[in-house]
Every structure is written in C-alpha cells, then in structure tokens.
C-alpha cells in the first residue's frame, strides 16, 4: 500500500458536490451564493472530464415567446407519457433565466449579427443555443473557482456517511497517491453522471454508475433504471459527437441498397429520430441483410457546414485525417452504446428541489431521474444539458439551505474506519483478479444489441444472474496501485447498476420508448403508465411501482392515453 494511503485527511464543508461536470459545477456555483464553504470533488479533473466535456454544446433554450404546451405535447407523446408536466414547465422557465445568466458572464454562445443568441436545430428541437462543446467545461471551471468554491480533482468518492436517516458527508481517496479522505458536509449533492459501461462512445470511459451505487448504499431510491441503454450513432472506426445537430441539418442515413430507411421507422422525425428509434432501425436493417448502413452530410447547407467546422474543429480534423469527407460521400455507420446517459433513469427526486428520498442528499444531472422531463425517450439531444444546468442550480440551492438549517453532523469514528477499510481493501490484497478482465465480462451482458436494443425475459434473467456473479467477484479484486483502485470501485458500481437495470427491465412487461422487449412488443397503457422505483432493503433490491400523475397533464390542455 502506498505510504500516503495510510494518512487520513479530514475536511469539513457546508455543501459537498460529488462530480464536476456541468451539473456539478452549477450546483457548486449556486450553493456558493448561499453557503460559506462549498467543495466540489471530481474523480478526474473539473474542466476535462464528465460527459459535458465531450458534448457538442447544444442547450435546449425555452423562451417566454415559445409555446410551452406544444413543447410539452412533443416530449410527452414521444416519451410515452412517463414525464411529469410540472417538472417540464419548471425546466423551461428555469433554463430561460440560466442561459441569460451565463450570457451575462460572457459565455461564448453563438450569436447573430445583432448580438442575439442563435437557436439551432438538433434532435427533437429547433431551439438549442450553441456553446462550443470543448470550451464549455473549461469556462465552468473558471467560474467555479472565481466564485470561491474549492475544487479537489482526482478524488474518487466510495461511500456516503450517515447519521440517523440523513447523509452527513462522504469518504474517498486521491486517485494519484491513494490518500484517504473524509469529508463532513452539511448537505451533499451527487452529480457524478450515469453509467456508460466504458462503451465505445466518445469520452465516457470514466462514467461508471458511481452515482447510483453511492445513493443506493446510502438508502436512497432510484427510478426508471430499465432506461439505461441509450445509443448514439457513429462510424465503426471512431466516435462522432455532434450527431444530434447533424441529424437535423441535412444528415441522412441509407442502407446498402441506397434506401433512406429512417422514413419507414419514424415517418415524422425521419433522419432526425430519437436514438432508440435510430438504433433499432439500424439493427433491424442489418439483421434483415440490408446492411451495412451509411451516413452522410451531403445535403447540409453551406452556412451550417461553416458553423460545424467552427464548433467541432477536433472532430473534423480527425475525419479529414482518416480520409472521410461526409460532405462529399457517405461513410459506414453503426449504433454506438452510450448506456445510462441522458435517459430516464436515475436517483429518484422527491420534489422540485432535487432532494432524494434521504435527508441531506440531493441529485443533479445524469445522476438524477431525467425521465421527469423526457419520459422514455433515448438520445433526446439538447435537453440533456438543460437538465444538467437546471437540476444543478436547484440542487445546489436546496443543499445550501438544508446545510444552513441542519449544520454539519459528526459521522462517528467507527463508521469512518469501516468505510476506510472498505475503500482501501483491494490495495491490501496479495492475490485477486484484475478489474479490466472483469469489466469486460460486464460489458458482454450489457452492450450487445440483444441485451440493449432488443430485450427479452429469459435473456434478461440470464444477464441478471451473471451480473450477480460479477458483483461477487468484484468484491475480491486486487488493485496494485491507486489507479487500479479506481477501476476496482468502478467495477463494483457498474455491476450493481447492471443488477438495477435488469431487475427493472424484467418488471416492466411492455415496450415503451427505449425499453423494447420482443416478448412484450406492445405499449401497455393499461398497466404501465408507471414509474419503477428500487431501493435497498434487508432482503436485497426491493422494487415497487408508482402511477404517473396523469391528472397534471390536464392543466396544460393535454389528454394522456386512457389507462
């Protein structure tokens, strides 16, 4: 064990934010407005990690001139009526102010010749303001430091600390030197993303379900975990980001025979379809012997080409170097696994202040249940960043208020000692498997199309059984250094997340949005206009259902399907 691992650093703060992507930065910024001591911890580095670092920078921006009911109607229908309309309205009204606030800081939004914010098309929207993706998180890091929040990079959080029913902080270790640290906090925000199972999509290799594992072990409920199988699409050779925009700006998909097949699968949105429809379409075309499928940007208008080159310079450099010119010719394309990112799943929010079911614990961004605003849609495009900003803001605000009221509580030395032993245990093992090999076993039961795009009861049962075996093995891994210790904890978190996915997927005996079961191919509104919730109980994972509050739709003039 490295000598540093033996030391114990103790930090006391009012608000602790775990995860330094867009949601975490917003939580820290807002918390700092209201609380004295705010600490943002990040497993990698704030500014160059998290899904938001590798986004294309489209933020869905509602303004008071837009028709709220029309927007709601679109997302509600497309998302199979699993969203909460009141949450959707709050999201719209709040993002209007947040984007203006960011603009007032001098954020580099794309503007027209009058200096007004330009709104562009993306998957499912005509109203995304555009922030160059690769600058977004660097900008946010500067803002967080300027405002006086403390940032600690390279801290991997492994357990939340509790006192009575409430969360009172967390423990973790430094990923470089292995030093253990205890953070006592008045309130804690989890913003450490979803779970991407280190899939083949761009920049997501560090997002391993730690949010869900931390919340679950602390007794918090999670919702809609069956919606953890998002796809994007990319070349088989490397990943493409910016697809949401490309799909709406002249991008087109064709099969081996040259047919524009997306019109068959989604006559309304066509090539701009949400990714659960797109991945399914590509999968079915290939299974029917009409593969491979292709993508091109031949029909993209000239002004959008110029903007794309400006916003995504690294991507176009890479395309050029590999001899692909999508403006001139089509290239082979495939579904690309993203996992539990930007989909309905996440820590259950009990109120619009982003509180979890555990006092003192809040959730934001991909960690929080985004189904409240998108329902069963996969790959909803620009609304992901909107969700990160708004929930970050709300969670930071509520956490700061909670911390002021309750103050910092003492977690007790026995609990800290136990958490420390748990955290560093893989470093102490002389023997044990490597986390890399075991992680691959996990990917095999999550990523392939027969587990993610088209599900089936028996296959999910088998995958669940294998996930439980892998969980068992993950508890016996060996880490030769702190870098591998991170990977051990990532494997544990992802294996637990996999169990959540399949237990929820087996319970939902229907198909809706991104959850498609070949043994239950129809949408069952009679029985399944429901959210699935799970939490830790004495006998293991306990699942329950809750009816979607359909009465709320009437206020917005929308008639939900009859049950």
């Amino acid at each position, binding site marked *: 064990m490295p000598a540093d691992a033996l030391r114990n650093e103790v930090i006391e703060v009012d608000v602790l934010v775990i995860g330094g992507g867009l949601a975490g930065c917003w939580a820290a910024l807002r918390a700092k407005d209201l609380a004295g001591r705010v600490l943002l911890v990040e497993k*990698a580095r704030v500014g*160059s990690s998290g899904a938001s670092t590798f986004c294309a920078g489209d933020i869905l921006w509602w303004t008071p001139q837009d028709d709220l009911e029309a927007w709601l109607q679109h997302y509600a229908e497309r998302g199979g009526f699993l969203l909460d309309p009141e949450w959707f309205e709050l999201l719209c009204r709040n993002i209007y102010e947040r984007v203006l606030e960011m603009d007032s800081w001098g954020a580099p939004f794309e503007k027209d010749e009058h200096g007004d914010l330009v709104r562009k098309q993306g998957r499912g929207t005509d109203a995304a303001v555009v922030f160059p993706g*690769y600058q977004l998180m660097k900008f946010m890091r500067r803002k967080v430091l300027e405002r006086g929040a403390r940032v600690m990079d390279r801290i991997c959080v492994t357990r939340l600390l509790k006192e009575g029913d409430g969360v009172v902080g967390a423990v973790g270790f430094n*990923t470089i030197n292995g030093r253990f640290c205890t953070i006592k906090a008045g309130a804690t925000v989890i913003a450490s993303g979803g779970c991407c199972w280190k899939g083949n999509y761009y*920049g997501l*290799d*560090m997002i391993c379900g730690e949010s869900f594992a931390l919340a679950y072990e602390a007794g918090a409920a999670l919702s809609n975990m069956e919606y953890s199988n998002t796809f994007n699409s990319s070349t088989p*050779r490397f990943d493409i980001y910016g697809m949401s925009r490309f799909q709406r700006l002249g991008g087109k998909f064709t099969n081996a025979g040259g047919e524009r097949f997306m019109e068959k699968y989604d006559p309304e949105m066509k090539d701009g379809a949400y990714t659960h429809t797109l991945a399914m379409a590509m999968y079915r075309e290939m299974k029917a012997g009409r593969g491979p499928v292709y993508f091109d940007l031949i029909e993209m208008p000239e002004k959008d080409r110029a903007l794309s080159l400006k916003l995504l310079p690294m991507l176009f450099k890479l395309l050029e*170097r*590999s001899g692909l010119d999508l403006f001139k010719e089509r290239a082979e394309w495939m579904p690309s696994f993203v996992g539990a990112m930007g989909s309905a799943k996440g820590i259950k929010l009990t109120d619009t202040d982003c509180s979890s079911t555990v006092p003192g614990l809040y959730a934001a961004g991909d960690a929080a249940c985004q189904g409240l605003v998108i329902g069963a849609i996969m790959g909803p495009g620009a609304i992901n960043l909107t969700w990160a900003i708004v929930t970050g803001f709300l969670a930071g605000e509520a956490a700061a208020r909670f911390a002021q009221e309750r103050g910092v509580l003492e977690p007790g030395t026995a609990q800290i000692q136990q958490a420390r032993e748990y955290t560093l245990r893989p470093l102490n093992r002389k023997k044990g498997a490597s986390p890399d090999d075991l992680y691959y076993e996990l990917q095999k039961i999550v990523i392939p199309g027969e587990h993610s795009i088209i599900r089936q009861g028996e296959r999910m049962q088998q995958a669940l059984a294998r996930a439980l075996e892998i969980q068992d093995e993950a508890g016996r891994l060996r880490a030769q250094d702190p870098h591998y210790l991170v990977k051990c904890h990532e494997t544990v978190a992802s294996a637990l997340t996999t169990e959540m996915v399949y237990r929820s997927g087996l319970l939902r005996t229907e198909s809706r949005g991104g959850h498609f079961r070949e043994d239950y191919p129809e949408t069952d509104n009679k029985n399944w206009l429901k959210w699935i919730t799970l939490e830790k109980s004495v006998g293991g994972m306990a699942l329950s259902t809750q009816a979607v509050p359909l009465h709320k739709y009437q206020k917005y003039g929308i008639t939900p399907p009859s049950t």
Partner: protein
Amino acid sequence: MPPRVDATKCTGCGICDLVCPGDVIHQLDKELHPLVRYPEECWYCGSCRADCPEEAISYVFPAVII
C-alpha cells in the same frame, strides 16, 4: 501508442498530466518528460493535445481506428 510526446518540444510543464481525464499520463518529475503510463486506457479524447502549450503532443491511432 497514444498519445506521443515530442521530446524536442516538451518543456515538462505537466499540463497534460493535469488535464488527462483518464489518469493515463503521469508527469513524475519536472525534469523528465511525461510518461504515458496506461496507454491502453487512452480513448483519444484530445484533452492533452488541445491544452499542450508547446503543441508537443500528437496521437498515433492504432490500425483498428484508422
């Protein structure tokens, strides 16, 4: 082996180590050039290349990628 550091341009400032989200690059000593310690874990995100003030970093893509 991605990423590749050009020793004639590198000043040992350590920014690449600082920004790498995968903890792949380690600058152990200011006098030494950065060490690509876990090359198989690099996912070509471009952070080190984009932030290197000397433009000393390039990528060598394996055959499966290009």
